[in-house]
């Protein structure tokens, strides 16, 4: 094991192993408040492979969103370093697409213009990416809604538009913070299927945060379980299911077993909201 550096990494896609993907080494975060320092994240060490679907589950307030902000470069870590494709993150690098729990579409922009927001921010040629935006909207089933304003769309459709917005500038990484938390259960399952399909088709590296353990196991290649605040890694699980998954997989013994196993973490912690 020692002789081959990087051999312990489970490389999903090609490319230089170790350099690609997201490397988190010794990253911690402490917020300074008037009442003193509040530790949010204990030093974390893990690596997300290029093209991997990586899901983080954990109780509320364990610093999951903080982690996401640090990877996108919006928030500097208190210690340690974050490498995205071998480059250290010190400021927003634009190589991410972000999806929040709320679709956060700008109400004055049409659906298409909302999807084009990253293009405007990054000053990329609009004409060139317009076509791509249209194709993405088609991919998520929003063809014909390009000229509509966000309030004319249902919650699920808005969230799909926000996924297009996260993909339009073709980032390597998608960061999703409880993206389907505000949707009803049925829409949520459908969105899970769609997200899986999008990930297979685009090959993006996805870091998704969720409260739902079944959702985590259903979507993930690997699941990271976090402890209560200050967050640290409780365990990382490989999901022993094939990459092509239908909803039937939820009845698979391997699936239910893993869900049970992850759930135990929270029962011993006695804090899952």
């Amino acid at each position: 094991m020692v002789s081959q550096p990087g051999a312990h990494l489970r490389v999903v896609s090609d490319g230089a192993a170790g350099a690609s993907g997201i490397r988190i080494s010794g990253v911690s975060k402490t917020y300074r408040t008037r009442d003193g320092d509040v530790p949010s994240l204990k030093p974390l060490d893990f690596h997300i492979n290029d093209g991997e679907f990586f899901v983080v589950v954990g109780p509320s307030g364990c610093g999951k969103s903080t982690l996401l902000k640090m990877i996108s470069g919006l928030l500097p870590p208190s210690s340690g370093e974050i490498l995205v494709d071998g480059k250290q993150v010190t400021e927003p690098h634009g190589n991410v697409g972000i999806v929040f729990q709320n679709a956060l579409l700008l109400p004055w922009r049409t659906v298409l213009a909302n999807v084009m927001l990253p293009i405007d921010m990054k000053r990329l040629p609009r004409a060139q990416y317009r076509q791509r935006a249209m194709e993405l909207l088609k991919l998520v089933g929003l063809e014909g809604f390009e000229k509509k304003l966000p309030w004319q769309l249902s919650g699920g459709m808005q969230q799909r538009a926000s996924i297009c917005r996260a993909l339009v500038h073709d980032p390597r990484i998608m960061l999703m913070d409880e993206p389907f938390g505000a949707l009803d259960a049925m829409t949520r399952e459908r969105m899970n299927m769609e997200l899986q399909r999008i990930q297979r088709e685009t090959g993006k590296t996805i870091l998704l945060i969720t409260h739902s353990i079944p959702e985590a196991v259903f979507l993930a290649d690997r699941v990271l379980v976090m402890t209560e605040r200050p967050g640290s890694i409780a365990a990382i699980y490989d999901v022993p299911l094939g990459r092509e998954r239908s909803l039937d997989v939820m009845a698979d013994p391997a699936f239910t077993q893993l869900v049970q196993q992850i759930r135990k973490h929270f029962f011993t912690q006695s804090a899952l909201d």
Partner: protein
Amino acid sequence: MAESREQRGASKLLNAVWIRPFLFLIFIVIAWDLTIRIFHIPQYQIPAPADVVAVLWHDWPELLSQSWPTTYATVYGFLLSALFGIPVAMLIAGSKTVESYIYPLLVFSQSVPKIAIAPLFVVWFGFGIIPKVISAFLLGFFPVVVSAVQGFKSVDPDMVDLARAMKGSRFQVFCAVNLPHAMPAIFSGLKVSVTLAVVGAVVGEFVGSNSGIGYVMQRSIGTFDLPTMFAALVILALLGVILFWVVDRIERLVIPWHVSQREDLIIAA
């Protein structure tokens, strides 16, 4: 088809925005007239509606020419409050330090009665338009700042983060996210401001001026010419309504996407 269209036209007329307040206004005028007749209220206390209308009719050219200075003062004062109010709000919303220095003083300045310091402007700037404009500006400024600050501050921080994560510069993010988001609040402030600017201009004219509707009112009170005074009040109200309407129209052009404008979209669709 033609019949139903006609019906729709009639109901549209009844439902038109202006018809209901107009009907209510007629009701008030009738009640006013009846009250005077029933209780025999003398003319030097409250003039009859007909007398006011007569004054409006006969002195129309004079009233119109006097309403121009008031209008100018109001509009300049209002534009100044927008011109200064919005950037000040941006500074207050953008920086905690600026807010801690300026905001309390701004609120404090609001408790100073403007009418009490208005003579000061006459001392400084004479009897021209400037004291009136300053007075209109001082009354219109505060609502713009308060509303705009609230508008700028209510932006979802996640939305700003999203734009910043795409490498948007501070200025880009401000133009794409913060400013449009604050527009509805800014406009609600501007609407309050424009009506207060009318009051401000008249206060300026009360204190020291030889032209404008405020001057006409001052003069007619001095001679117990109440019909003229009421006619001046009507003109002032009209001026306020017209300016409010203009701002409202501009708002519809600038933020057609906002909740307050959606009803029209649905009806049109």
